């Protein structure tokens, strides 16, 4: 049995690593360890997080340069072994760029960076990442320039048919429509898993919704992962 430590992969330019570590420590009650991108071995892999930020400046395309780091090679290997992996924001972009997740994240429809609150409908409450969320709509902040989810028709159909869509942008009341789609994502998709459902990618930031002065739905998210340990 590996030690109970969660790994957070850190790339040059990651900037949500600290916030994520705090959320995990406080609400999942488990230690975290940063893994610098040039390590080709990850010792603690009970669960792996890929944080938000601007890995390698988001140059070329958000997330793509990070996929060439040694640590990502290891993430891919462990992913195939079924290790739970969660990529948030830039982490989601990285996971699509290295094909662990389907689709891609294009520029926001309005061509601007968007920082705002977002409401998310829990579309699949059976997945290991969402089954303990206890709410049907949660609120997490978003902050990204490339969060406009796109996938080919075939991929999209698969995502929908397999219940791989975990979160969709919606109104406070849970209405999913164009008006409540902040960035132009296909079918309001905000978070998906892979087919095996051990990898989650999401644009919104649950780690930014854990403080008393925030809306605290992030606490539910991290608490809900306890079962995985």
């Amino acid at each position, binding site marked *: 049995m590996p030690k109970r430590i969660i790994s957070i992969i850190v790339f040059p330019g990651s900037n949500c690593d600290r916030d994520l570590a705090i959320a995990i420590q406080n609400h999942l009650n488990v230690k975290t360890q940063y893994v610098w991108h040039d390590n080709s071995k990850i010792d603690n892999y009970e669960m792996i997080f890929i944080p938000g930020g601007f890995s390698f400046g988001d140059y*070329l*395309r958000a997330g*793509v340069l990070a996929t*060439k780091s040694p640590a990502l090679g290891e993430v891919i290997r462990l992913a195939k072994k079924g290790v739970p992996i969660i990529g948030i924001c830039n982490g989601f972009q990285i996971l*699509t*760029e290295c094909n662990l997740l389907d*689709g*891609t994240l*294009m*520029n*926001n*429809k*309005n*061509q601007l960076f968007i920082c705002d609150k977002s409401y998310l409908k829990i579309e699949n409450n059976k997945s290991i990442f969402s089954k303990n969320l206890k709410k049907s709509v949660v609120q997490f902040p978003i902050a990204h320039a490339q969060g*406009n989810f*796109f*996938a*080919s028709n075939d*991929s999209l159909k698969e995502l929908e048919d397999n219940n791989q869509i975990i979160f969709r942008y919606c109104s406070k009341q849970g209405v999913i429509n164009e008006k409540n789609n902040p960035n*132009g994502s296909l079918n309001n998709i905000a978070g998906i898993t892979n087919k095996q459902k051990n990898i989650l990618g999401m644009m919104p930031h649950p780690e930014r919704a854990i403080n008393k002065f925030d809306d605290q739905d992030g606490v539910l998210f991290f608490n809900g992962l306890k079962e995985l340990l």
Partner: protein
Amino acid sequence: MIYRVYINYKKGILDPESEAIKKTISNMGFKSLKNLSKGKFFDIEISEKKNGLKEIEKISKDLLSNPVIENFKIIKK
């Protein structure tokens, strides 16, 4: 040896940037605009070698382009 790699969106992909530019152009009063699409290119210089093209192909596929939405084309300059 210099290669130029052209990258553009696959057919049918709606590129929000091009859409926005198109709108601005017609707001600017240019009525004859029929279509506009955007792409990027990379000029890559490598040292003279046998399988240079192969390498450029690999880089274009694995790094420079995103196969979900983009095509690439390589020409030798």
